[in-house]
């Protein structure tokens, strides 16, 4: 009896390890001409729209004088920079004396009042405060300050009473620590003290002048021996935003704060012995201040009233152009990337290729993982190149058109570039997963675009959604990931338009990105489950 051996192919059995799967998926991707062209088109759209927005934004000023009524247009000047390099507004009224070396200043603040223009009209004429309404802004401030010099943007530390946020210690524009809460009045005054030792400044507050509490300690690096110290008042512009279809409009204007202080006591090295007042003017055109003629101070029998306008704060996005403005093309690139991501799986179903794929590798979850890895890596690489080209080109065009562009640190720039590329990559994986789940490409593409792009559109177009709903949309939908492009942080101690329409997202950059990753992971899990359960 002869034993017939079963037929075995002469070929060595192929392996279906993960590396082979990735290689197979990469071969599929690079040999479909439409997908390669699509990826290139996505990159070109990002660069092209970036260049378009860069050349479509102009900023110019002219210094009109009676001698020269038609001066040439010049690029808009950049605002002053704070000690940390960030752009700031530094406008207030300062009543000062030099402080040479160690010393302290203690005052009692008995009232903080204010004026603003209820109609939003800019005050004019010889007496601009005549038509203004009484009322103090929540972040109007008055108190004591120690500042490196009178130059706008120089280092400072201040103890202040605010219109609606109690006593605060603030220093170097971005730092803020709360002290005693509650409003100030003659019956309930606030005592403030600043002590200087070298370049360390400590702020104290007290409700009775006897029991003192340390509010904060600031180290002002490089504070000169002779610093300027004294009393100050500042009032940020107020704004009422009205939105309507076709454009939002902001009415508002400068305000004035008046602080009443007494029991001024100085210890240490105060060589001048008398007070001088000056309006510090370091503001940009978007930070409204009243003219210096309205600001000022009076001194009668140890009692001071100081009236000031403007703010001591980091500037918000509306005062210039930002790096991420050049990345508007991300949305166009995103749509292309989503189409490719969906097709990467639905095309296999349509052509029947999926049966060959699963015959070669019956472990379907691993096939999906290999697809996700290839798609994510290709999209990340393409996105990285596109963004790395777009930002320098766009920023150069913005600057060439006279726009001051907000400075960003290298770390923030890295986060924006890598984060945008990662956003595109994760979005493509989300599209792949949704395509696997739904199988119908039109529905899958529309679903992903509606989840990623539509919430952003609804949140930024003025007058479409109420502000609360817009914030909510860019918090829970995949569109939250665009927070990764936000270059300027929002400061809770600054009165500014911190809305998605102005480029501020409710979530921190990487938290917003994590929301998209969560959606992608969820969709992938469901897709892997559905892939195993369903017939092909």
């Amino acid at each position, binding site marked *: 009896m002869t034993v017939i051996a079963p037929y075995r192919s002469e070929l060595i059995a192929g392996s279906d390890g993960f590396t082979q799967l990735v290689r197979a998926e990469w071969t599929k991707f690079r040999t479909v001409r439409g997908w390669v062209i699509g990826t290139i088109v996505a990159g070109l759209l990002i660069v092209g*729209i970036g260049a*378009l*927005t860069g050349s*479509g*934004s*102009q*900023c110019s000023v002219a210094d009109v004088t009676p001698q020269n009524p038609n001066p040439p247009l010049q690029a808009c000047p950049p605002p002053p920079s704070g000690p940390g390099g960030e752009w700031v507004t530094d406008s207030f009224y300062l009543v000062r004396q030099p402080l040479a070396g160690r010393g302290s200043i203690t005052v009692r603040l008995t009232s903080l009042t204010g004026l603003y223009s209820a109609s939003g009209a800019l005050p004019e004429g010889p007496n601009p405060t005549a038509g203004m309404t009484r009322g103090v802004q929540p972040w109007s401030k008055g108190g004591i300050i120690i500042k490196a010099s009178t130059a706008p943007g120089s280092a400072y530390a201040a103890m202040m009473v605010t219109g609606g946020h109690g006593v605060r210690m603030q220093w170097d524009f971005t730092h803020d620590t709360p002290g005693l809460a509650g409003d100030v009045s003659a019956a309930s005054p606030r005592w403030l003290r600043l002590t200087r030792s070298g370049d360390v400044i400590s702020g104290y507050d007290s409700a009775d002048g006897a029991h003192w509490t340390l509010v904060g300690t600031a180290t002002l690096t490089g504070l000169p021996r002779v610093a300027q110290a004294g009393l100050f008042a500042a009032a940020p512009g107020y704004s*009422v935003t*009205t*939105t*309507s*279809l*076709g*454009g939002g409009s902001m009415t508002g204007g400068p305000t004035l704060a008046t602080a009443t202080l007494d029991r001024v006591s100085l210890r240490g090295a105060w060589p001048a012995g008398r007070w001088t007042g000056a309006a510090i003017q370091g503001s940009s055109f978007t930070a409204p201040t009243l003219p210096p003629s309205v600001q000022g101070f009076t001194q009668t029998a140890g009692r001071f009233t100081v009236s000031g306008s403007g703010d001591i704060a980091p500037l918000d996005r509306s005062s210039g*152009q930002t790096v991420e*403005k050049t990345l*508007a093309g991300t*949305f*166009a690139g995103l*749509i*292309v990337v*989503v*189409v490719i991501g*969906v*097709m990467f799986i*639905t095309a296999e179903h*349509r052509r029947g290729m999926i049966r060959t794929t699963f015959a070669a590798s019956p472990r379907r979850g691993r096939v999906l993982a290999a697809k996700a890895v290839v798609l994510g890596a290709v999209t990340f690489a393409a996105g990285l190149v596109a963004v790395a080209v777009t930002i320098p080109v766009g920023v150069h065009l913005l600057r060439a058109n006279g*726009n001051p562009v907000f400075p960003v640190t290298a770390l923030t720039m890295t986060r924006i570039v890598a984060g945008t590329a990662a956003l595109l990559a994760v979005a493509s994986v989300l599209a792949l997963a949704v395509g696997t789940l739904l199988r*119908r*490409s*039109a*529905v*899958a*593409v*529309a679903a992903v*675009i*509606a989840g990623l*792009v*539509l919430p*952003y*559109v*609804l949140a*930024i*177009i003025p*007058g*479409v*959604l*109420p502000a*609360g*709903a817009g914030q*909510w949309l860019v918090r829970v939908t995949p569109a939250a990931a665009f927070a990764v492009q936000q270059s300027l942080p929002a400061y809770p101690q600054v009165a500014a338009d911190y809305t998605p*329409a102005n480029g501020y997202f409710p979530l921190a950059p990487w938290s917003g990105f994590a929301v998209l990753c969560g959606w992608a992971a969820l969709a992938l899990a469901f897709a892997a489950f559905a892939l195993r359960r369903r017939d092909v």
Partner: protein
Amino acid sequence: MNGLPAVTGSASWWAGPRDAVHAEWTKLRTLPGTGALLLAAAALTAAVSALAAGTATCPAAGCQLDPAKVSLTGVDLGQAIVAIVAVTAVSGEYSTGMIRLTLTATPRRWRVLAAKAAVSGAATLAAGAAAVLASVLAGGLLLARHGITPAHGFEALSLGHGPVLRAAAGSVLYLVLIALLGLGVAAAVRDSAVAIGVVLGLLYLFPIIANVVGDQAWQRHLDQIGPMTAGQYIQATTNLRSLPLTPWQGLAVLAAWAAGALLAGGLLLRFRDA
């Protein structure tokens, strides 16, 4: 003979315009998912509109809220679903090879496209009317709860009020035009994923780019030519003078986009192999 109907004229067994429409209606009706998608379009439109109206608030200082516009917010999402229905009506045939059968039965390709436009348009009209009606009713109820009523100086939100009726009827037409735009794009590019990507890109990109371009004149031009931005001027009932176009001019811009897409799609369908 052997059971076949007698052929009397050389062309009479070709589908006429009515037959073509009837065939398209049968395809759309029996395709799995069409009904569900149209129902979803209506339901989601009404739901998003109700959500927007339910969260609308007005600060004490006053605001220029447009009640009709707010209560029609859902159209922004509904248009995406309407576009899916229209796109799949064409590209679905290409993915299954059905298009060859369709063009064999109706060799006049413009007639096929016209029949598809008529059927998709009519289906969208029905779903859109239901969606807009539900949105306006929900908006009226919810906005009144937040004190956004004529008593507080806002426009009345009732279909008896001329501008509101124009906004509502215009929104239905807007959805029909979006469907026609989708149909034209799909006839031109054939693949459903690419077609829906192109349509949604055309709709959503204009407002985003307009938002980042600093120049006011550029912004205005982008808003004037964007199919979504211009088309939705039909929903405005307040502050009409601040719009870059009148409401009907805006809808005409969208109609031009739809006509252009249909023309391009029709020409490609006519002169390209199926």
